[in-house]
């Protein structure tokens, strides 16, 4: 009796797992397939090094260098702003909170992470962009800087939670010996936890970069979306917002459509490359 149920259970589980993996693999293959069609028409080199994006002209100009730069630029600005704040908060959390407080602060960080990107974009538009226009007297507040600031707030929770997880472990490991030696908490934080957490911090950066580069809605609302060479105080465009804005009008099967998939592919490859770079950096750090 149970044997039959067991057998059914086994098969069902295996089927479902297979199904979900197939979907995932299918998606990846699908993206490849649709992008490759594009690369038959336009060479890869031209695509990623050219600077003009104008799919409505004929012949079409389809090159996304500016947009790639825009994506990278705004993500790095975000990381530069968010990293010190995130690491600092991580230290604060792992050293000075425990038990109930830990869960509560974790909860708050999770809530921050759960705020949808449209809401962030909404606030960014009304607060950051308005601030630039009203107080700093920019002709228009949409800029890479606005996008960077907004994005940094969005990736903060990721940095904080990854860092504090690592730091928690390190802190626990060393607490005993540290207390025995009579060192202060601050000393522990500065000299032990922080240096040992390098790997965790790098992991946090990877996670945060991935999130930042793939972010669509919030960035779209505050960056102005112009495919020009990005400068800090000028407008720019990122790959996700390019796809979001133009996918509505690119016919399935047209060159434009394949170009959008190709830019998505480029984005994913960039993420992969960054992941690999950081993986090697992580490996290179020797922990005691």
């Amino acid at each position, binding site marked *: 009796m149970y044997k039959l149920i067991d057998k059914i259970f086994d098969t069902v*589980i295996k089927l479902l797992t297979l199904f979900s993996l197939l979907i995932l693999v299918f998606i990846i293959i699908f993206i490849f397939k649709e992008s490759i069609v594009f690369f038959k028409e336009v060479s890869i080199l031209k695509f990623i090094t050219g600077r003009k994006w104008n799919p409505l002209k004929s012949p079409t100009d389809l090159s996304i260098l500016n947009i790639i730069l825009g994506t990278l630029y705004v993500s790095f600005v975000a990381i530069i702003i968010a990293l010190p704040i995130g*690491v600092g*908060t991580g230290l604060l959390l792992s050293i000075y909170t425990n038990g109930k407080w830990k869960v509560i602060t974790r909860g708050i960080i999770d809530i921050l992470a759960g705020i*949808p990107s*449209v809401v962030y974009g909404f606030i960014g538009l009304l607060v950051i962009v308005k601030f630039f226009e009203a107080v700093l007297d920019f002709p228009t507040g949409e800029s890479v800087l606005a996008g960077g600031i907004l994005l940094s707030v969005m990736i903060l929770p990721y940095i904080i939670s990854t860092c504090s997880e690592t730091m928690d472990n390190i802190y626990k490991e060393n607490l005993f010996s540290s207390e025995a030696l009579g060192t202060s908490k601050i000393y522990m934080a500065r000299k032990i936890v922080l240096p040992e957490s390098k790997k965790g911090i790098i992991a946090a950066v990877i996670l945060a970069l991935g999130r930042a580069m793939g972010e669509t*809605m919030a960035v779209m609302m505050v960056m102005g979306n112009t495919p020009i060479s990005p400068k800090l105080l000028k407008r720019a465009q990122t790959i*996700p917002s390019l796809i*979001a804005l133009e*996918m509505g009008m690119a016919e399935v099967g047209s060159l434009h459509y394949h170009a959008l998939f190709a830019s998505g592919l480029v984005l*994913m490859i960039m993420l992969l490359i960054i992941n690999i770079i950081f993986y090697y950096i992580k490996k290179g750090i020797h922990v005691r």
Partner: protein
Amino acid sequence: MLENIKELLFKIWIILSGATVLFLTLFIFGYIIKHGFRSINIEFIFGNPKGIPLGAEGGVLPAIAGSLFLTIIACIFASVLAISTSIYIVYYCKSKRIENIIHTIIQCMAGIPSIVLGLFGYTLLVVNLKLERSLLAAGITLGIMIFPFIQVRIEKAFREASSTIIQSSYALGVSNSYTFLKLILHICKFEIVSAITLAGGFAMGAAAPIILTGAVIFAPIPKSLLSPVMALPFHLYILIGEGISLEKAYATALILISLLLIINMVSMVLIFRKRRSTE
């Protein structure tokens, strides 16, 4: 002397960071609550969009209903698959290589930007499978988006479930399915539900994947799986993007984050109860 200064700076740094984070959280919520509160009334929550242009007056009931339905479908789709995959990896999979391959695939999945998933969902589900812009297409796309999120957490929960109980169960000759359903599921139920609700919150707030697969500017409460829906994040985007109504936008944002807050609290409470039950 220098040491003391350095130490002081360090202290200032981490306290300032923590204060900034706290300030940001309070600011975000406070800002939305302050501006959105006055537009919240019974009519807003339970009425349909009205006015010229549409949305400037009236309510957002179809959007609330649409978002809830979308989240439910996404959660069902994702959790069934995620639970099965986790069961397979933790309890059935013998080879480490296969396990690594599966993990890599899932990690790749998590790295795909949500907009690309939306594009994929549109081409596959809406055009090729002819599902049309619908609750189903959008729900599945969202489900794919949150699948890695749930799977990772559930796998962790399974692994952390006490292996002694499980080993003893097998030692006693209890079958796989019985072990799983009666024991493991019971032990991990808080974490599983918590992961699903968190993911649901994530899905509720996502606008990018549903733009092409099911969200429309104007629709009544969805009557079938195949009808298009309004969704809160998309509605917010339209209200602010098209300059239809700032107050309504604030109110929509408020409703959205309130719903998410409730979901997050439920999730937190579940974790608390789990702690209590294992202490």
